[in-house]
């Protein structure tokens, strides 16, 4: 599959995300925040970082960039979209995903190897994982605390839309230990931890994150 990776001013993990996309058996297509088309890609990754310096709110300015107009339209038609960290914040600001991400409850930036449980393996991004697989990937954020009202949280849990949950430690105060969610259709996934930093043994905590990028290729040949 051709997978676009958007670079915003202030993106940090776009190159790692492109590399993870290639390791997963896909073609990585760099996209720029000012682009008015998606260059015919089959899926899009919004990478981590501090787009537009996190000015106003994390993701608030990026949400109105030209490329996001295209991403929002494509997501509405079912294109797989994965937002990691800052990308998750952008997806929430875009209202493609419910809830919001606010400053960590303990007020410190956190960087650690984090254990997650993949609770929904029916999205295009998580289909490589066994049900309730426990994986360890990198987590690094300052504003990663997932919040939504109780009604929204109940609905997300009731509809199986919690994609990943923190195990052992809740690193940022996220309500109900939520690390990632998906939309009603299941094609848009937001995840605060970084699977793209855990795709090879040389660096990072292992290869548990690679599954986020291999599921797409498998679907293409299914």
């Amino acid at each position, binding site marked *: 599959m051709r997978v676009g990776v958007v670079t915003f001013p202030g993106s940090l993990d776009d190159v790692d995300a492109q590399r993870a996309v290639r390791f997963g058996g896909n073609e990585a297509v760099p996209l720029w925040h000012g682009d008015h088309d998606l260059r015919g890609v089959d899926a899009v990754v919004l990478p981590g970082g501090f787009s537009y310096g996190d000015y*106003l709110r994390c993701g608030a300015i990026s949400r*109105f960039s030209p490329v996001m107009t295209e991403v929002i339209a494509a997501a509405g038609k079912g294109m797989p979209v994965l937002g990691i960290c800052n990308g998750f914040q952008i997806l929430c600001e875009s209202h493609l995903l419910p809830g919001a991400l606010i*400053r960590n409850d303990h*007020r410190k930036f956190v960087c650690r190897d984090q254990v997650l449980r993949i609770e929904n393996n029916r999205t295009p991004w998580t289909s490589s994982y066994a049900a309730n697989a426990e994986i360890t990937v990198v987590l690094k954020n300052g504003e990663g605390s997932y919040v939504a009202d109780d009604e929204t949280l109940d609905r997300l849990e009731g509809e199986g839309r919690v994609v990943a949950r923190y195990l052992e430690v809740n690193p940022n105060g996220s309500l109900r230990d939520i690390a990632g969610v998906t939309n009603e259709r299941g094609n848009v996934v937001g995840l605060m931890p970084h699977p793209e930093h855990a795709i090879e043994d040389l660096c990072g905590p292992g290869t548990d994150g690679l599954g986020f990028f291999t599921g797409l290729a498998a679907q293409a040949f299914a």
Partner: protein
Amino acid sequence: MARVVVDVMLKSEILDPQGKAVAGALPRLGFDGVLDVRQGKRFELELEGEVTPERLAEIERIAETLLSNPVIEDFTVHVESPVEA
């Protein structure tokens, strides 16, 4: 010209770690009696011409579209004072 002020605050049920940090610093500096601190944002919008109900309605849309995130924040809009041209 006129100045319209938009104040944005986190909803009361949303944790405000920055406000907590400020509140925690006060006793260390010898300031007592402050029970809680909430931190928000203030936007000052300088407008061309008169403030009409239509312009105010547009600023409400600006506030709910860009200046605030209605999922976690509330906002208020008020006309501060006509500014000398």
